[in-house]
């Protein structure tokens, strides 16, 4: 009995398998004839669009705000959003996107775990003929056709760093001693981290006359790693005078390391370390107001969300299956010098205002 049952089961399984696999080329081809006439015959507004949004995780304030920006904008436009959280697993994200493809969504937007997986996922979307968009963290190469909205990390980091270099020069002129810079680098698999590091290095090279060799602290975009590495770096180098960090979300870590050393001081204090980071979140906004932080390289989150969504909807409307467009968010640097005019352009400060903090 058992044996018979198991044989039947296996036969059924196999049958399912074969029927599943046999018409494999179909699904890729099938949506095409359906989708194009649909788009052509009816105005897009009548058909409710479905867009999948797959993000790597919602660990930091930045990603939460980004997630909110996208989901709210989409919902406001009457578009159905299907969300996937990959919990920082690139393979899982690929499977989720495949599931979304199987559901025949109209577009897929991802925040990838890293640049490499964005390529593999993009290729899957391309071959299924579904428009593919990447938010904030660009693919590492152009093998996959994608809509990319990303901040110009090199430029905004350099802008913020330039202000910090000016401050450092003042210190150098006053004391005659070269300033020792420290840079906290993100996960170098993330092109954003590479870009921010590059922006720092560009300014550093131009101002070598006032800087000693810089100290590099890897963070892997992980608080625990950052904490351990920064602690040991600060212990070995007591004379750090400038700190540039790849992301605002690490400020609590930085504070917890510097405070016991007596180096968490406001601007003007002789022990103040010139400080700046990238993103522009609420913490950064607050710390700049309080005078602990000198400069923040700001990516315009809402603008980027708007960019990617406009691009995506345009592509869907035109019936493009593999749109390709690189959309830069120029961003800006908020410094203590331009606080007056630029402060409210930073998304972190906008959020603070919404919450009534400002």
């Amino acid at each position, binding site marked *: 009995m*058992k044996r018979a049952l*198991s044989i039947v089961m296996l036969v059924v399984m196999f049958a399912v398998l074969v*029927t599943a696999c046999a018409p494999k080329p179909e699904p890729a081809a099938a949506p095409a004839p359906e989708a194009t006439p649909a788009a052509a015959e009816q105005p897009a507004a009548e058909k409710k669009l479905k867009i999948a949004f797959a993000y790597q995780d919602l660990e930091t304030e930045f990603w939460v705000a980004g997630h909110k920006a996208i989901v709210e904008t989409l919902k406001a436009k009457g578009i159905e959003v*299907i969300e996937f959280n990959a919990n920082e697993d690139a393979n*899982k994200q690929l499977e989720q996107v495949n599931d979304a493809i*199987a559901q*025949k969504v109209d577009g897929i937007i991802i925040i990838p775990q890293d640049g*490499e997986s964005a390529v*593999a996922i993009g290729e899957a979307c391309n071959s299924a003929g579904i428009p593919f968009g990447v938010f904030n963290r660009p693919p590492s190469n152009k093998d996959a056709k994608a809509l990319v909205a990303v901040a110009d990390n090199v430029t905004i980091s350099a802008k913020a760093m330039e202000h910090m270099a000016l401050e450092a020069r003042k210190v150098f002129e006053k004391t005659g001693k070269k300033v020792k810079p420290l840079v906290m680098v993100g996960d170098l*698999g993330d092109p954003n981290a590479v870009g921010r590091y590059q922006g720092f290095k560009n300014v550093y090279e131009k101002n070598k006359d006032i800087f000693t060799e810089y100290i590099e602290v890897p963070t892997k975009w992980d608080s625990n790693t950052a904490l351990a590495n920064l602690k040991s770096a600060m212990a070995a180098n007591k004379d750090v005078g400038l700190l540039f960090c790849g992301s605002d979300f690490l400020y609590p870590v930085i504070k917890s390391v510097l405070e016991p050393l007596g180096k968490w001081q406001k601007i003007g204090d002789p022990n103040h370390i010139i400080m700046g980071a990238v993103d522009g979140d609420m913490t950064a906004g607050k710390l700049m107001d309080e005078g602990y932080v000198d400069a923040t390289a700001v990516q315009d989150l809402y603008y980027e969300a708007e960019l990617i969504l406009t691009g995506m909807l345009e592509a869907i409307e035109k019936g493009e299956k593999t749109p390709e467009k690189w959309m830069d968010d120029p961003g800006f640097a908020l410094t203590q010098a331009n606080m007056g005019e630029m402060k409210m352009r930073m998304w972190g400060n906008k959020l603070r205002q919404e919450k009534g903090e400002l």
Partner: protein
Amino acid sequence: MFLKGSPTERNKSDVKDLFVKVLLSEYFIVFFCLLIFVSLMPVTPHIASRANINNIMSNLWPLFIIAIGQTVVLIVAGIDLSQTSIIAITSVVGAAIMTSKADPTLFEKSPLWGWFLTESGGPLAGEPAAIYAAIFVMILIGVGIGCFNGFFIHKFKMPPFMVTLVSQMLFSALAIYLTKSENIIGLPKNFKAIGSGSIMKIIPYSMIFAIVVAVLAAILLNKTVLGKWLYLVGSNPKASAVIGVPTGKVIIFAYAFSGFCAAMGSVLLSARLIAGRPTLGQTMLMDVVGAAVIGGTSLFGGKGKVSWTLFGALFFVILANALNMMKLPFYVVDMAKGIVIIIAVAFDVLRIEIKRRTNVM
């Protein structure tokens, strides 16, 4: 027959019989999968679309292969937590061998830089045999780590949980160290085909990989002396030693086989993402052990089958797929997953209890 009561009553008892039969079947989990599948069809019709079934299948194979290895280790009353790090390190090394480009800014600090990995890629960059060599080396590493685990477990009588936990940390760290946490890209096009290609667009390569491993494992477990020894050592190591089973070698073999399966799984996973990733597979452990155990393999050794594990893996894949299909908010997904797994396990316990009672009768 005529005296047995009204037809409806008879039907009722037939239905009950069928229910009990299904519950007691060793393939109960298949019916559970079908239940999930069928009950979701009205809600999300996409679940039964060909594209989606295809998708379920392609997600199934890597998990299945890796879980087969776990099953063999569970049969000898062990556990292999290091499979995830075997996946990671073989992925990285395999990719390093066959990649055709490596960005110096990323890899300058890697210990492989210069002698193994250069700007023009790995040692076999561009060679047609690179894929085969890479897969061979990946398997070699997997088996090697498995032997390492087995050796410590057998020789020093260390608990498998600790040994494999340590090697999980050790080799995962090594994978990260080797690449400085970077992903290695630029893999040959043919390698990508292993992950997503298929023969004549009908039979995916990944399925062939999985079936080969599964048939190998099934023959091993059912038809060979070594296979029986695995069960013996798992169910009663003392008695096995008495009747002349080389328990040490059997244990080492089990872990080596688990390493082999993890390496094969790594080939498929790396090929799907077209990259060597030092963090590959890190979140898979739950699904791998879960697939084996829900299929019916005992955590206490001596019990397990390849077919059971196939259905256990199918369960996890269908569950993930179904949850992805349901447009749930992301935080609900994991909760729902947990609840369904608990229900499945509860049913499993229930049916074992019923079986035990009916046996007594």
